[in-house]
């Protein structure tokens, strides 16, 4: 250490370098302590791998019925060596369909949440930073969208348009941005008054630059948590729509439309393998994502712990 250079000498924590890297590392250390969150992450990694590798892993073609040696369809066959999870009422392999359905759920979750997060962050940021009438207009729109019974809106819209996976993604994305918008607006109202934002304003930095460079990076944590939790919602909504027949259409498998078969009392009572596994898949996926969301919240911002 030089004696003549700086009046206050070296920085107190000079041995530790790379602030950003250590922040991520610390967050991961806190995340690891939450066993449920680690389980959720593990399950989701597995699910993503299975979905990506579905064509390689699936034992049968998920789209067509399977004929047995006698030349008839193997309809509602019990789980066996050949069909690990049985076959459905059209004689298609449940396990293969389950794997392909994972692709549907994950893409719906990912795409619709991307749409809603981009929209929500954009509109929330405009409302929060510019205030005044911009704020009033955007927040009134948010109130209106909030009041809509989303399920019925989606059912109506997807019945009017042609029901498809693509439409489901877009519709879910377009109605679920309001939560993010409110969150982002609130966070911006808080961060906007912080002194480092005021300092940039005093330097003459443009508002847009201030939002992008100073405000958004500092509110990434709650946005990320919100997006995670919304993924679970989106997957659930997709399942519900497909179950009702206005979402993903046959023959494309989706956990929701696989459950649809359980509407038959015969299937529900005697052919448990047709509905049990898609039901479990939805349950475990939604739970896992929620665990991840909770874990992220605690890991990224220890101050928020315990708040819902």
């Amino acid at each position, binding site marked *: 250490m030089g004696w003549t250079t700086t009046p206050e000498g070296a*920085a*107190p924590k000079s041995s530790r370098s790379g602030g*950003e890297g250590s922040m991520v590392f610390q967050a991961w250390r806190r995340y690891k302590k939450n066993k449920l969150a680690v389980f959720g992450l593990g399950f989701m990694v597995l699910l993503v791998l299975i979905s990506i590798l579905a064509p390689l892993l699936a034992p049968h073609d998920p789209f067509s019925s399977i004929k047995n040696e006698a030349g008839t369809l193997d309809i509602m066959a019990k789980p066996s060596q050949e069909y690990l999870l049985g076959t459905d009422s059209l004689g298609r392999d449940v396990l293969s369909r389950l794997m392909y359905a994972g692709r549907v759920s994950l893409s719906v979750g990912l795409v619709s949440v991307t749409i809603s997060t981009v929209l929500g962050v954009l509109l929330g940021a405009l409302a929060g930073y510019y205030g005044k009438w911009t704020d009033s207009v955007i927040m009134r729109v948010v109130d209106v969208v909030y009041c809509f019974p989303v399920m019925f809106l989606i059912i109506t819209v997807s019945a009017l348009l042609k029901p498809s996976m693509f439409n489901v993604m877009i519709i879910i994305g377009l109605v679920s941005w309001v939560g993010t918008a409110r969150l982002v607006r609130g966070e911006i109202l808080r961060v906007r008054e912080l002194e*480092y934002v*005021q*300092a940039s304003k005093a330097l003459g*930095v443009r508002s847009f630059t201030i939002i992008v460079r100073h405000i958004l*990076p500092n509110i990434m944590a709650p946005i990320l948590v919100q997006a995670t939790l919304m993924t679970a919602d989106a997957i659930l909504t997709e399942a519900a729509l497909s179950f009702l027949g206005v979402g993903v259409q046959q023959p494309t498998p989706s956990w929701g439309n696989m459950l649809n078969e359980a509407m038959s009392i015969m299937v529900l009572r005697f052919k448990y393998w047709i509905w049990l596994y898609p039901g479990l898949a939805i349950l475990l996926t939604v739970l896992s994502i929620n665990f991840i969301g909770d874990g992220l919240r605690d890991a990224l911002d220890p101050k928020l712990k315990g708040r819902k």
Partner: protein
Amino acid sequence: MSEHLLEIKGLKVHFPTGDGGWFGRGRQYVKAVDGLDFSIRRGETLGIVGESGCGKSTTGRALLRLVPATEGQVLFEGRNILRASSGDMRGLRREMQIIFQDPYASLDPRMTVGGIIGEAFKAHERLSSREREEQVQELLSFVGLRPEHIRRYPHEFSGGQRQRIGIARALALRPKFVVCDEPVSALDVSIQAQVVNLMKELQQKLELTYLFISHDLRVVKHISDRVGVMYLGAMVEIADKRELYANPQHPYTRALLSAIPQANPSRRRERIILQGDVPSPVNPPSGCRFRTRCPEATERCALETPAFKDLGGGHRVACHYR
């Protein structure tokens, strides 16, 4: 060139409270700053003192248009900056800067020191990243930090060092005028002196004009040329530093000064202890704002607002009985 760098005329900053019901009818306003008149001379340090909530910080921020002024004029070299277009204002921002109180809140935790200070150049000058880096390094050594600190994050520095970073950022564009908003209040006493002396040194080198806001009367006495005393959104007294500390006129100034701890305990002075609390700035008292706590208040104080009159030699005071 006029003697005054900055002239403030009838400055008012009112903040609406709550939503005031439908269409803002019956909305109430917090009168954070309510009619300020003073001017700042080129190259001087004007200290502003007053207790928490008297509008010191709001005044400083209104001068830079960080909070919108409700009424009045702020003339910077003769131009009213409250009326300047946003384009003109960006140019003016080069000339007027601010140093903040909290060295922890005033630096973006996710940016390196180079990014924080370099932002000033990014906003106003077309420099290559290499040139920008050189400028920042030069500034760092100018405020007593090391050039290699440029890659570090704010959390790796001590409070005093962070405040030096804040000072470097404020001075990056070579401003003429700097608002110092309690720049040393959050620091240890031992570090306070270093930072204050650094600021004095920089003032001489760069011919800066300071508006030094503080609640610490001793720090203000050390750094200022003139001192203004604020109470409840208005200035009650302003004078040359020596004159104000030796010969305070307003009863509020006298009470404030009597609260400074004495270095020599045998030289006891009478403490003037004010009764009651500061009234709400939503509904300030009629007439003289200080009358509710003033030991000398009379009926006239409730009826007439005292003028901010000159007692000679630039010593101005807002009291009927001086």
